[in-house]
């Protein structure tokens, strides 16, 4: 089995080998070989940007379908709060939750409920001085993976608290077990996901171990069935237990606002996030205690598996929150250890380094610089690597050859032509 699981999949028939995803990938994890996009597994953080940008719809995220829930005695849906921003004229999230009930889920537990618990726990741990400042949120799995492969000095700053999805899955399952007496395996807990990164997290958690979720279903996948059901509801059941703090997590800044007054920074969009992390690593960001980072623009509402424009969704979420109580979920007697990471986040050095042996790595870099100096520097991507520098790296690693560069090839052909001409 491959060491790394990725939810991003390629439909090879639709991929024409253009350079859109190649140029968009924030970790330079894509190469085009034989006119098909390939993912460098150790570098991909499953942010989903390649899915978003592909004009040929050749990329998609592997996620579960409603058929997959059928094998379980009790089917549990844990919807991300971003789901509530997807519907026009929605004034009550119970309509969405009842809709989920109608399309086959027996039990609904909003992830926003767990988000309120995570917020409270974070506030407590900050007050008790138990977290390394500045604290980086661990909620967005693409960000945690990015830090794991690119920012060794920041691994200790990521808050060691499970993401609300995991906390919600555990609480929901425990509740169903208590109510029904069924065993764990008879209950299927499915996350209704706005993004590909969460699908990966469900199938292969960044910190190892096993997710509390049995699967993840894309919002975009259940959207048609769900809206249909929501349009034909006879009664709206009072299922929701979320306050405005939890639902606010759907958009960038929501988690920070839930810190209630800490000095915070909230950045969204993967390029912006990378710039913040670079500055953080160099000690340039002062006077900030809490840092919320979301890979998608606008936050989770900008996830690549949502259907609505993120800013429209954001406006709807703000509107919904107006009528909600502040928070309906409190830690009380909950087991805090269950909400904490079981392991530390460790840096994965192999994603970007040239070689384990520094002498060899230096030698390779020397060669890279020499090759790079001879390349045109257009970063056109025609060779299949995102930049000339990346191509030089691929050559040194033995994964590409100089004539993959069309300008180098042209030069060579011209030389051969000139030589032939002279001999005639």
């Amino acid at each position, binding site marked *: 089995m491959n060491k790394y699981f990725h939810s991003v999949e390629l439909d090879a028939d639709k991929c024409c080998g253009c350079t859109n995803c190649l140029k968009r990938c924030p970790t330079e994890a894509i190469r085009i070989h034989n006119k098909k996009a390939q993912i460098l597994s150790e570098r991909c953080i499953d942010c989903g940007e390649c899915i978003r940008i592909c004009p040929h719809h050749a990329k998609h995220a592997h996620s579960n379908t409603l058929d997959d829930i059928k094998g379980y005695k009790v089917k549990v849906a844990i919807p991300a709060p971003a789901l509530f921003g997807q519907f026009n004229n929605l004034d009550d999230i119970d309509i969405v939750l009842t809709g989920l009930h109608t399309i086959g889920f027996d039990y609904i537990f909003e992830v926003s409920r767990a988000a309120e618990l995570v917020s409270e726990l974070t506030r407590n741990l900050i007050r008790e001085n138990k977290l390394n400042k500045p604290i980086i949120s661990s909620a967005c799995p693409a960000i945690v993976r990015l830090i794991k492969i*690119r920012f*060794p*000095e920041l691994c200790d700053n990521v808050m060691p608290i499970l993401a609300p999805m995991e906390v919600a899955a555990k609480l929901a399952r425990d509740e169903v077990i208590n109510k029904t007496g069924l065993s764990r395996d008879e209950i299927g807990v499915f996350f209704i996901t706005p993004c590909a990164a969460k699908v990966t997290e469900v199938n292969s958690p960044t910190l190892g171990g096993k997710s509390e979720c049995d699967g993840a279903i894309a919002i975009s996948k259940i959207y048609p069935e769900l809206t249909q059901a929501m349009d034909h509801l006879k009664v709206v059941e009072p299922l929701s237990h979320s306050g405005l703090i939890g639902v606010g997590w759907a958009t960038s800044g929501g988690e920070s606002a839930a810190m209630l007054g800490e000095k915070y920074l909230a950045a969204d969009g993967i390029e912006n996030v990378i710039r913040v992390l*670079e500055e953080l*690593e*160099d*000690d*340039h960001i002062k006077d900030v205690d809490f840092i919320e980072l979301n890979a998608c623009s606008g936050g989770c509402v900008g996830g690549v598996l949502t259907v609505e424009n993120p800013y429209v969704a954001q406006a709807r979420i703000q509107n919904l929150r107006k009528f909600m109580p502040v928070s309906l979920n409190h830690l009380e007697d909950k087991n805090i250890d269950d909400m904490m990471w079981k392991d530390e986040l460790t*840096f994965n*050095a192999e994603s*970007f*380094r*040239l*070689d*384990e042996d*520094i*002498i060899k*790595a*230096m*030698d390779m*870099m*020397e060669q890279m*610089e020499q090759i790079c100096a001879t390349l045109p520097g257009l970063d056109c991507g025609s060779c299949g690597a995102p930049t000339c520098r990346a191509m030089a*790296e691929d050559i040194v690693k033995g994964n590409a050859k100089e004539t993959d560069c069309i300008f180098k090839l042209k030069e060579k052909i011209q030389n051969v032509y000139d030589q032939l001409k002279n001999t005639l």
Partner: protein
Amino acid sequence: MSNAIHLHYEVPGDDFTRAGEASGLVKKRLKVLGYDPDAIRRVAIAMYEAEINMVIHANGGYCDVDIYPDRVEVLLADSGPGIENVEKAMQEGYSTAPDNVRNLGFGAGMGLPNIKKYTDDMRIETELGVGTKLYLTVNAN
């Protein structure tokens, strides 16, 4: 070990937004080499401070970086006014930066003290009216 990777960067004197470009590029190179993360961080911070110094006080300059397997050596050189009193400049909080620079959040008088703090060796050669050379060494663990 004699084998080193040499890098050379110009630091433009009139653009704050580009100060830090050289330290950023060096950081990237060191990461690709799989260098000791703590050393990478210290090199990046010290170099950035020195780059900012060159922009504020000396209208830019250049830096030469030598990466060895066990250490990074950096030379930052400018043709600025020189440092009148090195001892004073090394004191925390002492600054000769003009007000417009301070308004941008720089000029807190922490530049040289911070550089010293993050490096294993630091040497200043300065001559009034001629310029300043700053030699830095950061050891890898």
